């Protein structure tokens, strides 16, 4: 059996969870309808009133919210309570457009931190642990969320924020950090830096890491676990719903338990908006159940995901979501097959390549073509033409197995994949030019 922060709710029978959800959704919808004119208008247009929502089964009647709504309603349009009741804002980085600002009452902060506390305890955290939080602090939800969770568990909390790796390592070694919270890419970097400084994985006291806020693969997990000598747990969340802790992994490491007493999850067809049955792959949609300041109903995350209610060995009864497989707006339909850049990335990492690649989709003679330019790493280069061509063939084979369609792979020199503002342009869809 696992470790729980709130065992009575985390292991509650399904009927009990449903009862809690049904009771909360009725109140939540009424609260939004009465306080958020923006959403009231959406409901009115759809002909739905709070009286129509009697249980979570009725959530499918509600209108969706998208990132575009958040932009349009920026900054106060979706606020559901007086500002005098709010104690905090958090915000997104705004890399994909206008930033999202989320508001919190003390109640909202408490429930968010509780969710993070559940994640820390699931990773083996107790009040005897030293929890080093190197997610960014400030507007970003990562630092404040895990910091609050760590306080609730009673860990000695190291509010490091991100960066200054030498100092991270010094505190980690001097104070004997046992739990590390940061992005997976920073965890990998810390691992490399420790090795460079001459430390072996067994030299640190870390036992667990809670990593999230960016996509990472199973291969990356194994490599971080090895380099730090820990067990690495995934955590998921988004500013729109509160922050990290919407869902978290238990020791089974086979998906993240969604905190269903606070967030109701649906999987929908991204094209039609239709709710799909359990086990289907589709877009993840969240409805908050008991937030005061910024309760979003049916918020489309754009993350492509699968939900499962299969019994978990940890004893938790809350539904599990898989690691997001990509974003619905990243999805390419090539010759009728759904292709996600993340699948291509997984193959590249599996085969020992860098994740520097570019996907070029075109239409030649009414048939879609898929070309993938992959940067060659120095240690993979041979002076023989045949070696390089065999590498391309091998990659094409691995891609075909993963994607279900065969691409043409081209190895290209390092740094030749076009980057804009430091971020690689992953997809060029030339079909749009022809249409």
């Amino acid at each position, binding site marked *: 059996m696992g470790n729980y922060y709130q065992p009575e709710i985390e292991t509650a029978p399904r009927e009990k969870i449903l009862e809690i959800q049904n009771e909360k959704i009725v109140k939540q919808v009424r609260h939004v309808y009465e306080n958020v004119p923006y959403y009231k208008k959406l409901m009115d247009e759809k002909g739905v009133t709070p009286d129509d929502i009697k249980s979570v089964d009725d959530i499918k009647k509600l209108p969706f919210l998208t990132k575009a709504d958040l932009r349009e309603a920026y900054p106060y349009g979706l606020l559901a309570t007086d500002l005098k009741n709010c104690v905090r804002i958090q915000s997104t980085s705004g890399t994909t457009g206008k930033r999202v600002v989320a508001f919190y009452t003390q109640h909202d902060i408490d429930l968010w931190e509780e969710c993070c506390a559940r994640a820390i305890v699931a990773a083996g955290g107790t009040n005897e642990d030293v929890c080093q939080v190197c997610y960014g602090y400030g507007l970003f939800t990562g630092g404040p969320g895990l910091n609050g969770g760590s306080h609730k568990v009673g860990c000695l909390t190291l509010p490091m924020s991100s960066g200054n790796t030498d100092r991270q390592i010094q505190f980690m070694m001097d104070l004997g950090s046992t739990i590390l919270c940061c992005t997976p890419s920073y965890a990998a970097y810390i691992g490399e830096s420790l090795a460079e400084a001459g430390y072996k994985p067994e030299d640190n006291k870390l036992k667990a890491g809670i990593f999230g806020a960016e996509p990472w693969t199973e291969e990356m997990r194994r490599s971080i676990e090895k380099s730090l000598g820990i067990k690495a747990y995934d955590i998921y969340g988004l500013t729109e719903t509160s922050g990290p802790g919407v869902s978290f992994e238990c020791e089974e490491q086979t998906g993240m338990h969604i905190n269903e007493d606070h967030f109701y999850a649906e999987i929908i067809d991204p094209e039609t908006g239709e709710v799909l049955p359990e086990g289907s792959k589709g877009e993840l949609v969240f409805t908050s159940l008991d937030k005061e300041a910024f309760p979003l109903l049916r918020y489309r995350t754009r993350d492509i995901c699968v939900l499962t209610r299969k019994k978990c060995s940890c004893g938790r009864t809350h539904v599990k979501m898989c690691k997001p497989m990509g974003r619905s707006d990243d999805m390419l339909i090539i010759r009728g097959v759904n292709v996600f850049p993340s699948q291509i990335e997984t193959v590249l990492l599996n085969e020992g390549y860098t994740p520097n690649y570019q996907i070029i989709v075109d239409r030649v003679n009414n048939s879609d073509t898929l070309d993938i330019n992959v940067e060659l790493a*120095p240690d993979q*280069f041979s*002076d*023989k033409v045949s070696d*390089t061509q065999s590498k391309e063939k091998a990659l094409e084979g691995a891609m075909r197995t993963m994607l279900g369609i065969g691409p043409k792979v081209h190895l290209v*020199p*390092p740094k030749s994949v076009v980057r804009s503002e430091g971020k690689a342009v992953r997809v060029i869809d030339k079909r749009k030019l022809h249409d």
Partner: protein
Amino acid sequence: MAINQLSVFVENKPGKLLDIVKALADANVNIRAMSIADTKDFGILRLIVSDTDKAKEILSSDCVVTVTPVIAAEMSDKAGSLASILEDFAFEGVNIEYMYAFTASTELGAYVVLRVDDNDAAERVLKSKGIAVLDGVSI
């Protein structure tokens, strides 16, 4: 004695080769021998230069570069010299991955750069025929 050849991965696009050659020129590195193997997408440029270490350092900042030991043999510039060497290679089972040749002048002879699967065996063959194998300095 094997000498070091630089192999550079080059995109098959106008100006790419120029960039490399120019970088070497700016660093005052002299090219003694070269060849390009080309495919539709890329080429592999093979170079024997006056200063391999320096050239590698310069090119590595923007290109993928690898160093491969190859054999440079000197022979007389007349019909049949190469055939005679290759006959012995075939007999000894030395496989040639690729090669390129150049002549200096008829008096000075011809040179062939050989990338083979077994440098030691190739050198033995050449030595037994009295063919000079060049070192990095003499080339």
